[in-house]
């Protein structure tokens, strides 16, 4: 018989060990999945985890790693703040789109401006776009007690439709020969988020992600505000006793998530993507939820988890290309990671005891 015994104090060891265990379990379960699909499991795992870093074309892929990890880390840091407080912002994808739309709108409006102020102004507008989009579920929750989970998620679909409308309508490139999509910001020096060091994939968004990691660490683990946020997630009544005002907490939790997601959208549209198109978003906002949990809602953990997830993105693409794995299989693979993490999480708070007890 197996019994779970609650630990009086959560285990430090297991809180570090479970993410590793989850990664290993995912590799095994993923391997089985790939085998069922008729691919060689070890080969597939190697293509996903090894080749992008050390394989033949690794020098190109290593740059991609930072490009993909940047937005994931940035968004996950913001989400972690809300999650710690027990505020479940599922709509980062929408906030990410809005950040991109706001900043691209400004850049295109000013076209072809030549100004050092344009890029900083786009950053501000990107953050603002995501923040305002997140304020919709926040205000509705505070005023009417609606579920932020549902509202923020639904707003993703609204944002996606708005994105498509903008790409085909108001922001469409007037010189684009009728093709959907905006002007490419990569050809627009004042607005272009260029690579900082050639070939590394390092752009301003990656810098922002690193700053976000440090900022979130200071806020959540050194500052009294972060302490109160954590208390609110653990014991809401104790939080009120400690002076936390629930409405403000909701605003802060959703607001930070929104602003960080908006920033990520801004750096993406002005850099790697370059363009507002209807397929601009690729799910960073959703994957960041996995990143946040995989990283234990801790900024340093998120940094590592972001890199790992970026690797599965790139490796997944490669596996699609080289082994013909369906993209859904890759998504299942990523989902497994979160699933196993949550399952193994039990070990942090519980001890497993084996063996029958004499009755």
């Amino acid at each position: 018989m197996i019994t779970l015994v609650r630990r009086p104090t959560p285990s430090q060891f297991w809180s570090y060990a479970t993410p590793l265990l989850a990664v290993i379990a995912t590799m095994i379960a993923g391997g089985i999945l790939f085998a069922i699909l008729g691919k060689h499991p070890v080969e597939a795992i190697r293509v996903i985890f090894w080749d992008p870093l050390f394989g033949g074309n690794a020098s190109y892929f290593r740059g991609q790693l930072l490009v993909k990890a940047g937005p994931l880390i940035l968004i996950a840091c913001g989400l972690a703040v809300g999650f710690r407080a027990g505020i479940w912002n599922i709509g980062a994808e929408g906030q990410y789109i809005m950040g991109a739309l706001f900043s691209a709108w400004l850049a295109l409006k000013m076209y072809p401006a030549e100004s050092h102020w344009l890029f900083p102004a786009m950053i501000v507008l990107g953050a603002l776009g995501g923040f305002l989009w997140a304020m919709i579920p926040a205000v509705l929750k505070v005023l009417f007690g609606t579920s932020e989970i549902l509202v923020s998620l639904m707003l993703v679909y609204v944002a996606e439709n708005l994105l498509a409308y903008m790409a085909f309508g108001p922001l469409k490139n007037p010189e684009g020969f009728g093709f959907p999509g905006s002007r490419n910001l990569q050809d627009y020096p004042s607005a272009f988020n260029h690579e900082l060091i050639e070939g590394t994939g390092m752009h301003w968004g990656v810098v922002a992600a690193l700053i976000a990691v440090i900022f979130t660490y200071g806020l959540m683990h050194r500052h009294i505000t972060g302490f109160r946020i954590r208390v609110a997630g653990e014991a809401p009544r104790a939080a009120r006793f400690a002076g936390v005002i629930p409405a403000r907490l909701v605003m802060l939790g959703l607001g930070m998530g929104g602003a960080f997601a908006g920033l990520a959208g801004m750096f993406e549209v002005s850099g790697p993507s370059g363009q507002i198109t209807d397929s601009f978003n690729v799910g960073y906002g959703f994957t960041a939820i996995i990143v946040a949990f995989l990283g234990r809602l801790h900024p340093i953990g998120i940094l590592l988890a972001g890199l790992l997830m970026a690797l599965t993105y790139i490796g997944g693409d490669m596996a699609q290309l080289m082994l013909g794995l369906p993209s859904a299989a890759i998504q299942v693979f990523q989902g497994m990671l979160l699933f196993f993490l949550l399952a193994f999480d039990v070990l942090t708070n519980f001890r497993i005891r084996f063996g029958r007890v004499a009755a």
Partner: protein
Amino acid sequence: MTELLKIDGLTKAYPGVVANDGVGFSVRPGEVHALLGENGAGKSTLVKMIYGLVKPDSGTMHFAGQSFAPADPRAARAAGVAMVFQHFSLFEALNVAENVALGMENPPPMRQLAKRIREISTAYGLPLDPARLVGDLSAGERQRVEIVRCLLQDPKLLIMDEPTSVLTPQEVEILFHTLRKLSAEGTAILYISHKLEEIRTLCEGATILRAGKVVASCNPREKTARELAELMVGAELKVTDRAERKLGDVVLKVSGLSLAPLSQFGPSLKDLSLELRAGEVLGIGGVAGNGQEELLATLSGERPSALGTVSLMGEDISGLGPNPRRAKGLLAAPEERLGHAAVPAMSLTENAILTGTMRKPLTRNGFVDQGAAKTFADEIIQAFDVRTPGSHVAARALSGGNLQKYVIGREVLQNPAVLVVNQPTWGVDAAAAASIRQALLDLAAKGAAVIAISQDLDELMEISDRFSALNEGRLSASRPTQGLTIEEIGMMLGGAHGMQEAAV
């Protein structure tokens, strides 16, 4: 067969403490046996092992002549052991019969069950209406639900862990009546309480634990309460010293305060007024659930009241939240330790930060100073004799009484101008309760004003200068405690709160 339960060499260690160390004792059928001991002595751990909730590291148990090692509570129940916990596990939105059914392995049809509940509860003098919502019941009535749930299983041994800490004196009397009847029918009762007078009236045998070991067993009727307490502590007991206090100016003034209920089933506060002087202790008596929690929440600032209703040293603070009030010197300690006064999963150091940042330099420019917080936590542990391996331990690993000492200590050591405490000695052992009361008196002697909300009238008589009763959300006018008789207090409390014992 002379012994129903026989325990030998039972040992259970937790990280950093040995909660039970070779404990042995026995209980005869029909015996009412007390388990005594200081906070953290290991009483709860011991009964949890008997009930199958905790597995012993070593040692043996025999029940009704058979070797006994319950793997889980279900096995213990099947063998004839039942337990009533201090914290009720009832659903407020369900009715009595539904709650009882939820705790049974194969509940009979509802109608039949309701009938059984009615029979059993009247037979034992615990009248219960099976159709009433639990949310509408008083603490005493809720406990009846738990007891009746146990009695339906026809137990041979009934374990009660601090059953009376939430009851009024009248309710206690009714409970004792029931327990005596059960005992006369042959049911053994294992009874844990810190109220030594109760133990002396109820129990025929007692086992005394200290630091996990049995240090004595005796017949409590042959000892005085003081002797029992000294056996528990292993030292002489101090009497609280009520130094002459000088009353200062009015520091806290509440006028015309009304408040909507906190929860669906809670009472509202109705037009409360009170005045409190520096150096004074105001005792507020009454049964928990009559607005005690609400009063504390509104004074602490968790539920601010209408403007102009609460003023501190002449300044209207009605609209302020908890932290601005703390900064001005108004501190509070709620009665619910886990989840309200303290965060269960957080360490004692972090729990010091919870309320300590406004009056102690625990932060610098908003950043937490871990070193200072740990020093403060250690200071509380030291000054209030909190038994724990250290300040890194999570709050939920402390025994009930020790966490209570920590919570009160945290507020007292912040030198409040006004301190509001609710049930300050709930579940605290006699010696520790005395030291908490002494700390409150010392605080007042230093010029602070104290509001002590408690159901324990003896406690209030011991420490307070004036007494008010809080009943159904209304606060009576206060009267000096000196010379107040029990009858007068009874009048102020408005009778037995609608609880009657059925004719048995």
